């Protein structure tokens, strides 16, 4: 019986702006996810800027509250957590951020983030044991303690700084790591090293990872499942092999076609994509309608729900309207990777439909 560590139930976020909060922007449409609690998985959340992927990360980390829906940590709503439970949550759900410079307080040495983590979560008694733990954490990500301890952030390279952050997250032995574009500001040859280290350690320590990125190539290489976001809406999700090599949603197809492959000749497709200045489809319709080569009248009138087009995939597009609609829990199970969900567990998903528990 496995209860997910993080259970996002239809969480969405609407930001209010303008005088008296008159205008609002939907940053994220309802999304359901299950993370952690089973064997380690890597779930990719892919999208461009404005897709809502960072908003999702912040919702999962409890940094911002959802406008609708809830994020449950081991069954309890994040917003209701206090004291010891909140500390337990902080230890169990960790994050790695994108910018390797901004994450360090310039006032202090870089390794302070490791010492603070060890101290706050009592990972080892102070003194030699703690030092040994930190050195081990650094070695696990390929860093040499003598080259990194005691240095200030500006004395380290971007790659070293980011690796220290990865070490910090892993050292806490969380159950879920939310990695928000962890390597997009790192050199190409180092990306592979860092992602490889993260993947290996996560598998060894049974940590589930949410890999948020705009780079489909790395998402493809290290994840098992993927969620593709466009302007806040989930357009396609499921097994990464299926979604990337045989994309069904027109946006996913566009994304995959636009990736510059490091192989001359596998050229950018000849067909010119529609200009990107669209402000999104008409309100109430599919958000991709104004750029979609397969747009139909219904696309402007209704927002497409997710259709279960295969055992391990769902697509939000009226082109696949013959397939059955997927319930939120089905969607969550699609992205949570291979797991044996207890259909009978009330805490897991009260609205589990038949067929969602098995792969």
């Amino acid at each position, binding site marked *: 019986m496995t209860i997910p560590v993080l259970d996002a139930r239809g969480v969405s976020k609407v930001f209010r702006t303008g005088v008296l909060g008159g205008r609002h922007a939907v940053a994220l449409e309802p999304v359901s996810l299950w993370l952690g609690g089973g064997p380690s998985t890597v779930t990719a959340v892919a999208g461009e800027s404005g897709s809502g992927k960072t908003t999702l990360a912040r919702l999962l980390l409890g940094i911002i509250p959802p406008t609708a829906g809830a994020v449950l940590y081991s069954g309890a709503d994040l917003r209701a957590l206090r004291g010891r439970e909140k500390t337990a949550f902080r230890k169990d759900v960790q994050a790695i951020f994108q910018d390797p410079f901004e994450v360090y307080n310039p006032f202090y040495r870089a390794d302070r983030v490791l010492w603070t983590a060890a101290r706050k979560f009592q990972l080892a008694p102070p003194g030699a044991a703690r030092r040994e733990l930190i050195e081990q954490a650094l070695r696990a990500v390929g860093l040499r303690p003598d080259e990194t301890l005691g240095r200030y952030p500006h004395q380290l390279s971007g790659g070293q700084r980011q690796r220290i952050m990865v070490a910090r997250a892993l050292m806490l032995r969380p159950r879920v790591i939310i990695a928000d574009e962890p390597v997009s500001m790192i050199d190409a040859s180092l990306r592979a090293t860092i992602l490889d280290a993260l993947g290996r350690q996560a598998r060894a320590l049974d940590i589930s990872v949410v890999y948020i990125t705009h780079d489909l190539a790395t998402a493809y290489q290290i994840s098992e499942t993927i969620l593709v976001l466009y302007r806040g809406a989930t357009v396609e999700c499921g097994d990464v092999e299926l979604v990337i090599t045989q994309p069904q949603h027109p946006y996913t197809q566009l994304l995959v076609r636009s*990736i*510059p492959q490091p192989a001359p000749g596998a050229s950018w497709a000849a067909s010119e994509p529609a200009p*990107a200045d669209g402000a999104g489809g008409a309100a109430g319709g599919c958000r991709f309608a104004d750029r979609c080569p397969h747009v139909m009248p219904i696309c402007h009138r209704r927002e497409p729900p997710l259709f279960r087009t295969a055992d391990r995939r769902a697509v939000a597009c009226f082109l696949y309207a013959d397939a059955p609609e997927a319930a939120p829990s089905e969607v969550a199970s699609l992205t949570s990777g291979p797991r044996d969900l207890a259909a009978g567990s009330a805490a897991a998903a009260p609205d589990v439909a038949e067929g969602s528990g098995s792969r």
Partner: protein
Amino acid sequence: MTAPLLDVQDLRVHYGRSDGAVRAVDGLTFFVREGEKFGLAGESGCGKSTSALAFLGLLRSPGRVVGGRILLDGVDLTRLSEQELRQLRFARISLVPQGAMNSLNPVMRVRDQIADTIAAHEPRVRRADAAVRVGALLESVGLRREVARLYPHELSGGMKQRVCIAMAIALRPRIIIADEPTSALDVVVQRQVLQTLDDVQRRLGAAVILVGHDMGVMAQFVDRIGIMYAGTLVEIGPVAEVFAEPLHPYTRLLIASLPSLGGKRELRGIPGLPPSLVSPPPGCRFQPRCPWAMDRCAARAPEAAEVRPGHWVSCFLHEAAR
């Protein structure tokens, strides 16, 4: 073979610092032919952006050219005065800078900024003529004429970048240097902007030097590629050849570390760090990290050799093939 349009010979650029000069560019040699697309590829700290600035004479203290020549149509740019350089910039050699989207003046309309560039080199051009040219330029980069009267903040990232390209081609330069023009853009917009650049380049017959670190973009855009490492070029060749059969160990490892969509495999990076540019190691710069290093690699730096027609490598592994 006709003389190349741009001929860089043993360029050296140092940044003076109190604890020793940083040898950012240490012996850069390559050429670009007319109408050709050349990629200057490398990771952070390899010296490619410094080189781009050097080509345009835009280096500022403490950086300065300490050796070598940059020949544009036979004229050595390193020997020209600031006045002479200013006449050449945008007119013969042009730049689309890094973060170009942030180099647009936020309080000037698009048409005024482009018109400014034109007027700086052709002071006698009349406003009406300039306006017509601005409109034509915007259309040539795939933007509507109406964009001319907008302010930068009303444009998306991709549109701003295309305005920068329009500015760069306003005076029909012979060569355009694009320094990471799409690094802040989404993948879809990136493709559009680069296809625009490609289109523009072909119609003008101008050469393009694309400076960047995204090997995927290089593979899709350039004709020839030069791989930079620690201030110098380790391999130059036709892009298809270099990707299909990388000769230099660094190129080989770099290409192997790139994720692709053609099937899952283990991700493998290059262990170690690039060398210090203040005191680089003797001999080959890549030797400390090279899995195929031999004894003599640490003693002497290998020279560039044309191992295949048009394909140069600086590596002792290929010395025999000469």
